[in-house]
């Protein structure tokens, strides 16, 4: 099974031309050379802040966007530039769940029609009829199958997100790209949906690419995690590697910036300065160097490669990675040597 990954991404790149009138005045380097694999039944988290290219990546994986360069292989077939007809048989295996439960459902269609859409588009007639299949799906995601004839506006945000999940499951896919599936929901509803996705993932053996900005949610859902910054993967590894032994400074900063209910008072001590630079003109060399407290001259000139450390599953793109074994959680935050070098955010 592990011989051939379900999804194999190499050098995936998306540049959006910026036009003023007819002239092209620049390139937004939204995604710039991603490599990763997803095994059957595996959950990969894609995390990062706004502008890191995670959403663009998700859109490319289900081919809603055309990659500028690189390749996407799904189940051994190159689908990088496949047309609609060629994609058809693969569509059934590759589905997407969207962030906004309000925008992702056609307000003029009944729930039944929304969930049945993938079946109808692909001309699939399930045994027992479309309606029976749709009601089965509604039940699967925890909705009342009797609500088949209702319209989206009659449901709450969490219920709408369940409808979107049912639609994605209609074709019995092997891989689901979930683009921030819970971030638009109320706190108490998020956990319901995360649990639902986890149950479905286990019961149906689905592989997921789970896109999120919330590292805590990703930790509860994903076996592997890729941290993105400005269109690149800066660190990828198993969950335990990323959350307990982060090696990239950005991963550490991201983790320490999350306000955690279990720790009161001012949070972790790593404070990055400034905002994410524009992908229109990313920094040379390491893209994180402008906000990194470890940056040296080499970071500006030479781009660090995403290389595995110590032969493990964890790969980090950094010239000065943290030593393996330096646990972030041991002291709640890096102390001593690191703290001295940390860029203080507001210095009077």
């Amino acid at each position: 099974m592990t011989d051939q990954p379900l999804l194999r991404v190499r050098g995936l790149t998306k540049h959006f031309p910026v036009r003023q009138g007819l002239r092209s005045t620049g390139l937004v380097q939204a995604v710039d050379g991603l490599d990763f694999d997803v095994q059957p039944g595996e959950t990969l988290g894609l995390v990062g802040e706004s502008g890191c290219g995670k959403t663009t990546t998700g859109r490319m994986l289900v081919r809603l966007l055309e990659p500028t360069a690189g390749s996407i292989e799904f189940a051994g077939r190159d689908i990088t530039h496949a047309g609609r007809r060629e994609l058809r048989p693969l569509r059934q295996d590759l589905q997407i769940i969207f962030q906004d439960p309000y925008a992702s459902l056609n307000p003029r269609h009944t729930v039944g029609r929304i969930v049945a859409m993938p079946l109808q588009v692909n001309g699939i007639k399930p045994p027992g009829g479309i309606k029976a299949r749709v009601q089965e799906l509604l039940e699967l995601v925890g909705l009342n199958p009797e609500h088949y004839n209702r319209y989206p506006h009659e449901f709450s945000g969490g219920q709408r997100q369940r409808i979107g999940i049912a639609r994605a499951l209609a074709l019995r896919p092997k891989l689901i790209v979930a683009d921030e599936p819970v971030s638009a929901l109320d706190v108490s509803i998020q956990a319901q949906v995360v649990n639902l996705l986890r149950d479905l993932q286990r019961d149906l053996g689905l592989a997921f690419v789970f896109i999120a900005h919330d590292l805590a949610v990703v930790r509860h859902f994903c076996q592997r995690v890729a941290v993105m910054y400005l269109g690149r993967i800066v660190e990828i590894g198993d969950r335990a590697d990323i959350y307990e032994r982060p090696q990239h400074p950005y991963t550490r900063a991201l983790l320490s910036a999350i306000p955690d209910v279990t720790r009161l008072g001012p949070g972790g001590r790593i404070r990055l300065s400034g905002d994410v630079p524009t992908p229109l003109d990313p920094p040379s060399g390491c893209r994180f160097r402008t906000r990194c407290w470890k940056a040296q001259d080499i970071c500006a000139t030479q781009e660090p490669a995403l290389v595995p450390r110590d032969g493990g599953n964890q790969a980090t793109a950094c010239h000065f990675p943290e030593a393996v074994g330096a646990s972030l959680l041991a002291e709640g935050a890096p102390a001593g040597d690191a703290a001295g070098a940390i860029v203080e955010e507001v210095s009077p």
Partner: protein
Amino acid sequence: MDSSDPAPSGEPDDRPTVPVQRSDQDAYLRVTDLRVRFDTEDGVVRAVDGVSFAVERGRTLGIVGESGSGKSVTSLAILGLHDAKRTTITGEISVGGRQLVGLADEEVRRLRGRDMAMIFQDPLSALHPYYTVGRQIAEAYRVHHPEASRREARQRTVDMLDRVGIPQPARRFDQYPHEFSGGMRQRAMIAMALVNDPALLIADEPTTALDVTVQAQILDLLADLQAEFHSAIILITHDLGVVGQVADEVLVMYGGRAVERGSVEQVLRTPQHPYTWGLLSSVPSLHGDADADLLPIRGNPPSLINLPPGCAFHPRCRYADRPGDRSRTEVPELRPAGPTGEAGSAGHLVACHLTAEERATLYAEDIASVGVAR
């Protein structure tokens, strides 16, 4: 809320049933039994239904709730930013000793911006796109300082921009909102809110639209500025983590009512209301067992038009079906939470029909065992 309801069993009657905190006496902002109602086509919305709290200068109150909990309406009512035609407000709102409910719009307007200011969730829509950021802040200053010259206002603005951590403030003064990044815009909003040195600052989800690393910066900045200006801050958020990081006191709202109130340690460390338990155990954490299922609150937030009778939380509460339960019929009062004499529970209030002992047992059995909330 202030009624002398018989204390729940197990609590002697000599405890004050009226929730008075020490800070209530000399607080800068004091809200007492605030009720806000809107008339809509579909019926009367009781957006806020009898909420009381107080904030001292130099302290931060976190108001936590989901959509429709009434947390934002509370802040709009304090600032007098509600639609006066459709809204009925009763109760007392006292800011710096002045009673705001019933005050003429004109007088509230004069207080707004000078004595109290607001930071919004989305700075892009709160800033006017056609004026430079500097001009908008300077104008906010001159409204309340008519004697100030343009040069003074500009100088004051540049100082404020500098103070909130905007690099090259003199150059940034003449830039437009779209030329600022998200984090910089929120800093500019904070500069605008603080330009008149208000004693009360209301921040409505100030970091929700921001990335986590920027959110951390902004929260630090708010804490720094509070230490410097000694203002009272109300921080409205859905994120208990944010509250834990910056708040001194916490008010948990549900269905337009306060369900729990206390210091941040009390509410987050020894939460008393099943809703607060639910919030805490449903938030994924960076610690604990990552493979354990989250413990969600079942159901959906209620509609304010059609609130469940009794305790508004009862349809979602795990413990509502216990024998002898009154939550379907009777609205629980906000009462002292702890059993008699227990240290550390002073000022901790909860609105729940469960007794303190029941809550302690249930919490230990159900929630703490999951290992999420500590």
